[in-house]
Every structure is written in structure tokens, then in C-alpha cells.
């Protein structure tokens, strides 16, 4: 089952004129270096319906808010794409920045905006009217303020932008705690009395869980129990918590609770200079730091409008595909772990990962947090001996080991009986829910950004966008194996074609000049579409820095996926979505 999309389809320019379709209502964004259309909030749902149904932008990939504090307005940005490929459509809603900031919710058109709108509410305080379950998502109920607003300062706030003046030339060391009135990373409202505080707890969560459970069926009824899995649970792949309602062993309601690893990536990112964000992106999806580097570098290069050195482009592809191979191998190991094949397959998977990490360490200096990409290229060249190691892996070791995995696992009867026929999601729902990556392709949608909207030099390689048709757990397992083979194919071509030459088109500099404008750079990370939305106002720091994380968006339909399934399948269903908490919570 493989489809190769023709190149012509992907490169044709967008001729769509939303302004002509809605004269006098929709206007183009005329700020220099800004794209897209500005839609009045009254017409948003009408325009969005046309975008989806008439123009065929069926995948609403990214929703985020921007706080234009000096202009006293707030903006919600939407990025829509076609699953058949081609460039995207960006539209925005601008509203005055006075509470309550209200924008209509698009949840009825694209249910995939659910969590993204909740995130914008949580962090920016934008109220999406019509959203049925607008709770905080990353922070907890009762938290004071909306942190991503530009006038909101965190307890350890020192200056608005880095570098801080206190570090040099008079950098007398002190702990940040010493400067805070609470002697810690704390901030309370004035005259706050902790003894009088009544925690809100999870009342809202359980309320919404009760509202959205499956109706009671006739017949033998059993008690419904609310079950909390996580945040400390061996098979939730990190600090993920799922509040489930179960009837017997059947899941009848589920709400994911996230934010246990919310590390304020975006707030810190808006204070950092552009180059300083690079090592922070490593810590998003910590299995695939190279892919994260790639996405961020693309976004900023778009803004700076600079080319990438040819050799660097090949190195980038090699690293990104090696990342994909090790991610999928570990995915398979962990999936087996979740299914009860305690540790053994994972041990073998991690062995191959170690060998890939050796390469990363040799080129970048670190095993996991590579920090390898720079704007215009990569930081240092791949030496010949490392190239030889890559060749050894790509031509001999990895194919043999993938083959071995395939031989031992794919036909294994326990694996087959656990995975086959457990339906994850169908293609239409998956697209509506903005799912991307292998999970979407396992349902039969050949949507791979490397083909649909080629970035870097992926148009030079021959590879197939693999799809499967059933969309069950077994297909989700098989598609990872298929993708490893395709990645190895790309790697073999890249190793053959890689030219000699410089590895960066720019001079190394610690403060890059980024002209004002906006850019959305996206890559096909092993988990799905990883997008970086960056707005520059010409200063050394980004004005808005948003990460569209595949893990975060892909778990939006988790409830739909799990309803009616057995509780024992939950870990496998959750496992195949392949989430990483660092990216999910950012």
C-alpha cells in the first residue's frame, strides 16, 4: 500500500482569493511580510465553512493566539491545509484586547481545535464562545492570570528580553530566589491568605467527564467508576493523566489531563533571542531533537529569507531520517512494553537507538539534546569517519535489525491478537481532528508533509508515502516498520548524493538579524506535523513563538478513540498515538 503523489500537485501556487469571495468582509493582511486574510469575528464561522467545504482545506492544522499588547489587540491565527497537498491558507481574527476577549469557536467545523482553543484560553485568555468545555488545559483551575499575555510577569521575571544586564559586566552571582519576595518561584495576589484558600481541585474536570460519557445502555448495568490513570503510571509514557469513567471494563468516558510537564516553552521562547531558542527546541520532543531543530530552523530561515548550504541540507535530511528510524524502533519496543512484553523488545530497540545516538554525539556533541542546526546550515561538518559509521548503520545494521524485528514480531500471535481489529480511528474523523503523522496515514490518508508541501530537499528523493487502510492498532504498528524502510531509502540516496562544500550559508554569529514578519515552518516529525509559528518585530527576540506540537494535537480525539473499548486496550491505543510529554505540554 504505497502512494506517491506527483510533484506538480504539490508545487502549484495558491490562487485562492478569499477577498474576492467575500468582498468587503475579508481583507488581506497588509502588514509587510505578513500573509493571510483577516476575517471579522462575526463572519468567522461563515468564512471558515467556505474555506473547508468550498475550497477544500480540510485540515485545520494550527490555531494560536497572539497578544499585540502595544496595539491593544489580540489575534487568533489559523493555518488550514489540504490533505491532498499544496500550500496552506492562513486566516486571522483580530479583536480588541479588552476582557472578555471573545472569538467564536470553530469546534463544530473542526473538532480538532478543541485542545488548541483551550490552550489559547488558558495561556492568553481568549474566550472561544461556543466551545462546550473551555477549561484550563496546561495550568490548573484557579491559577492566577494568563501567562502568555505580554503584560503578565512571572515570579522570577528579571527583564523582558535576554541577555539580562545583570550577567555582565557586573555579574555578581545570586540565586533568583533571593530577589523574589516569596523567596521562591511564587507569586500571589495582593493580601492573599493561603489558609483561607479553598482549592478548586478537579471539580470541573469531573463535571465535564460526567457530561460527556456514553449513555447508559439497556440491560445489565454495573456501577460506573471514575478511574484516574496517571500522572505517575508506568505506561503513560511520562506524566500524562487520563480521567476515565469505566463500566465494568468498558471505557465510557475519558478526559485527558495534561500540563504536568508544562515548562513554559513559549513564554521563555519569547524572551530568548532567536539562536537561544535552538537548544530549547531540543527539549520539546526529546526523542527527536534533530527534527525539532529542523522545524525551528526552517521557520526562522523563512523569516530571514536566507538559503541553506547545499551540503547542510543533505546533512539535515540524514539526521532527520536517522531520528525517524530510531524513534520508530523505540516506538515499537515501547508498544510491546505496553502490551505486556515486558522490556525485552524495548531492550533490543534501545540498542539500535544507542548506535544512532553515538552518531549524534559524534557530530553534535550530545546524545539527546543535539542543538545541531543553525540558521543557514548546521553547526559543524560530519567527519569522514562518522559518515562511514552512518553508512555502516544505514546499509548493514539497521536494515538487518529492522528485518529481525519484523520477523520476530509481525507474525507473533500474541501481538496479532492484541492489535488486529482494535480500531483506532477512521480517516474522516482523523482529518477533522487535525491528526497528522503515522496515525493519520494508517487510516489511509497519504498526507506526509515531505511530499504534500516539500521542505528542504525532500523533493529530490524517491520515497513512498506509505499508507495502510484499516486504521487499527496493527496497521499503526506496521506503518512504523514501513516508514523505517522508507527512511532508510531516503538515507541511502542522501548518503550517495551528498556533495562537498560549506555547511552554512551564513557567518556564525551569536545574534542574528531577523526582519519583521511572520513565518510558519513545519516539518514531518516522526510523530506528525511539527510547526513553529514565529512572529518577529525586527528586534533580537521573537514577539510570538508558538509550537504546533503533533503530540498535543494528536491526542485531541483520544476520547473518541477510546470510547467503548476495553480498559486494557487503553494503554495500547494511547501508545500508538506516540506522544512525548515534553512536546505535549511544552
Amino acid at each position, binding site marked *: 500500500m504505497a502512494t506517491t503523489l506527483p510533484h506538480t500537485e504539490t508545487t502549484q501556487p495558491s490562487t485562492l482569493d478569499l477577498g474576492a469571495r467575500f468582498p468587503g468582509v475579508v481583507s488581506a493582511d497588509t502588514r509587510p511580510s505578513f500573509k493571510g486574510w483577516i476575517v471579522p469575528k462575526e463572519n468567522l464561522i461563515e468564512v471558515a465553512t467556505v474555506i473547508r467545504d468550498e475550497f477544500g482545506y480540510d485540515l485545520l492544522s494550527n490555531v494560536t493566539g497572539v497578544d499585540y499588547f502595544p496595539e491593544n489587540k489580540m489575534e487568533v491565527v489559523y493555518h488550514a491545509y489540504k490533505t491532498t497537498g499544496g500550500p496552506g491558507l492562513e486566516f486571522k481574527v483580530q479583536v480588541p484586547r479588552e476582557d472578555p476577549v471573545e472569538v467564536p469557536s470553530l469546534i463544530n467545523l473542526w473538532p480538532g481545535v478543541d485542545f488548541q482553543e483551550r490552550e489559547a484560553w488558558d495561556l492568553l485568555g481568549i474566550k472561544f464562545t461556543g466551545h462546550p468545555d473551555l477549561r484550563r488545559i496546561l495550568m490548573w483551575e484557579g491559577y492566577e492570570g494568563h501567562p502568555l499575555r505580554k503584560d503578565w510577569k512571572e515570579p522570577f521575571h528579571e527583564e523582558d528580553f535576554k541577555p539580562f544586564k545583570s*550577567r555582565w*559586566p557586573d*555579574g555578581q552571582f545570586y540565586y533568583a530566589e533571593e530577589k523574589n519576595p516569596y523567596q521562591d518561584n511564587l507569586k500571589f495576589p495582593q493580601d492573599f491568605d493561603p489558609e483561607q484558600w479553598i482549592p478548586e481541585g478537579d471539580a470541573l474536570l469531573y463535571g465535564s467527564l460526567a457530561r460527556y460519557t456514553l449513555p447508559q445502555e439497556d440491560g445489565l448495568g454495573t456501577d460506573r467508576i471514575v478511574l484516574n490513570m496517571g500522572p505517575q503510571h508506568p505506561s503513560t509514557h511520562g506524566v500524562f493523566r487520563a480521567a476515565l469513567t469505566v463500566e465494568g471494563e468498558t471505557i465510557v468516558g475519558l478526559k485527558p489531563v495534561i500540563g504536568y510537564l508544562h515548562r513554559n516553552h513559549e513564554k521563555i521562547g519569547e524572551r530568548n533571542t532567536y539562536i537561544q531558542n535552538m*537548544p530549547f527546541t531540543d527539549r520539546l520532543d526529546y526523542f527527536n531533537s534533530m527534527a525539532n531543530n529542523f522545524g525551528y530552523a526552517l521557520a526562522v530561515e523563512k523569516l530571514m529569507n536566507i538559503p541553506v548550504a547545499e551540503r547542510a541540507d543533505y546533512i539535515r535530511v540524514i539526521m532527520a531520517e536517522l531520528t525517524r528510524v530510531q524513534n520508530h524502533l523505540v516506538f515499537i519496543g515501547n508498544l510491546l512494553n505496553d502490551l505486556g512484553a515486558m522490556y525485552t523488545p524495548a531492550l533490543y530497540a534501545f*540498542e539500535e537507538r*544507542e548506535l544512532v545516538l553515538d552518531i549524534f554525539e559524534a557530530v553534535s*556533541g*550530545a546524545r539527546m539534546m543535539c542543538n545541531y542546526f543553525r540558521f543557514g546550515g548546521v553547526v559543524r561538518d560530519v567527519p569522514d569517519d562518522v559518515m562511514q559509521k552512518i553508512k555502516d*548503520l544505514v546499509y548493514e545494521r539497521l536494515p538487518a535489525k529492522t528485518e529481525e524485528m519484523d520477523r520476530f514480531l509481525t507474525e507473533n500471535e500474541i501481538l496479532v491478537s492484541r492489535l488486529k481489529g482494535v480500531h483506532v480511528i477512521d480517516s474522516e474523523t482523523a482529518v477533522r481532528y487535525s491528526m497528522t503523522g503515522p496515525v493519520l496515514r494508517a487510516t489511509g490518508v497519504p498526507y506526509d508533509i515531505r511530499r504534500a508541501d516539500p521542505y528542504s530537499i525532500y523533493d529530490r528523493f524517491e520515497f513512498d508515502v506509505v499508507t495502510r487502510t484499516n486504521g487499527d492498532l496493527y496497521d499503526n504498528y506496521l506503518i512504523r516498520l514501513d516508514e523505517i524502510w522508507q527512511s532508510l531509502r531516503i538515507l541511502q540516496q542522501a548518503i550517495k548524493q551528498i556533495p562537498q562544500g560549506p555547511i552554512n550559508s551564513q557567518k*556564525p554569529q551569536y545574534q542574528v538579524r531577523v526582519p519583521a514578519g511572520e513565518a510558519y515552518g513545519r516539518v514531518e516529525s516522526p510523530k506528525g506535523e511539527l510547526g513553529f509559528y514565529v512572529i518577529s518585530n525586527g528586534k533580537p527576540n521573537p514577539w510570538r513563538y508558538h509550537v504546533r506540537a503533533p503530540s498535543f494535537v494528536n491526542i485531541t480525539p483520544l476520547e473518541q478513540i477510546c470510547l467503548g473499548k476495553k480498559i486494557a486496550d487503553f494503554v495500547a491505543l494511547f501508545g500508538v498515538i506516540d506522544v512525548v510529554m515534553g512536546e505535549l505540554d511544552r
Partner: protein
Amino acid sequence: MYGKGILKGLSVTWKRFWDTYIDDISWLLRGKKRYYSEEGIKHRSSKDQKGIFTIQYPEERLITPEEARYIPFLVYDEKPDGTQEQRCTSCGICAKVCPPQCIWIVRSNDPNTGRPIPEPTEFYIDVDICMNCGFCAEYCPFDAIIMDHDFELASYGRSVYNMEKLLKPASYYKSIRPGQYAKNEAERKAKEAAKAAKAAAAAPKA
């Protein structure tokens, strides 16, 4: 057939078990050291590894590539007369580029001239904030700050490193990063030669 999968799975472990011993014997016959030797560790980290994969830290440790980075340190040159000359000029680039802002430099002024002394008076790195990104070493124009390979830093308390802890000799730098050291020395020599040539060219004119 039921149970086939289990047998197949067990055969993987079984094969690995025997591979280890077959490898051991073949190394023994060739008279080479398979454990606690660089060659053995290299073999165990290569594509040909078949049996045991374990590197038995602390008795043996992984071969650290030159680029490996952990915590930064400051370099000083050892002069022939035994004095130490710091390379750092306290220009502050590392403190500016540091993403989590964990570098603190105090630069003082010469009391006579009022101009900054090109040497840090105090230099701190909060090791418990440092994210090992390597930017400080990458952008330092004087090769004064280098990423160390030493990872055995576990302690019983929080660590903030000061100059005393950070300063290490250039010979240490050379020993952990010979390639980079040679490259930088060559660049430095070339620069000095260019400077000298320029001075020589300027001298007759004046």
C-alpha cells in the same frame, strides 16, 4: 502453531547468549582483549556487535567523541615561567548568548586608566542551570571557554562553579579535543603571522 512466537522470541535471547561466548573465544584465540580495552569497547559499539552490548561503567567507559560536551570550563595558558595566563578577556559574549543565562562575569576597571581589565575578576557558572548547549564555547572568539568531557560531577549539594573550579590548563584542553585545539592554534598562528606581516609592511612606510 501456538507457542511458536514464544520459542522464536526466546531464540533471540538464546542466540545473543551464545554470540557473546563465541565472540569471547574468538577474541581469546586472536589474543586480543575484549573487555577493558579500547578496541573491545569500539567493537561493542560498532555495527558488528553481536553478543554482549554492555559497557561496564565505571571499569570501562564509552569512547567519548571529541565533540562531546558537558559543562564548560575556562582555559588558561601555562607560560614557560610557570605563571598562568587566562585566555578569557571578559568580553561577555558567552554570558550574552547563554540561553538559560547561567554565566555570570564580573569585569573590573583598572583603577589607574579607568579602562576595563581584559580578564574576568569573577566568573560563575550555575551548573544546575546550565543546559550543556555549547553556545558559549561555539561563539567564544578566544577559545577561552570550552565544553568539558568530564561527566562525573555528581555531588551532595547544589553546585555553582567559580573561577577556581572552572579554570583548567590548555594542556587539558589539548588532551580532550586534540583536533579542535590544533585547528585553533593554527588559526591563532596565522592571525599572529598576518599581524606581524602587516606591522612589517607598515613599518617601512612610517
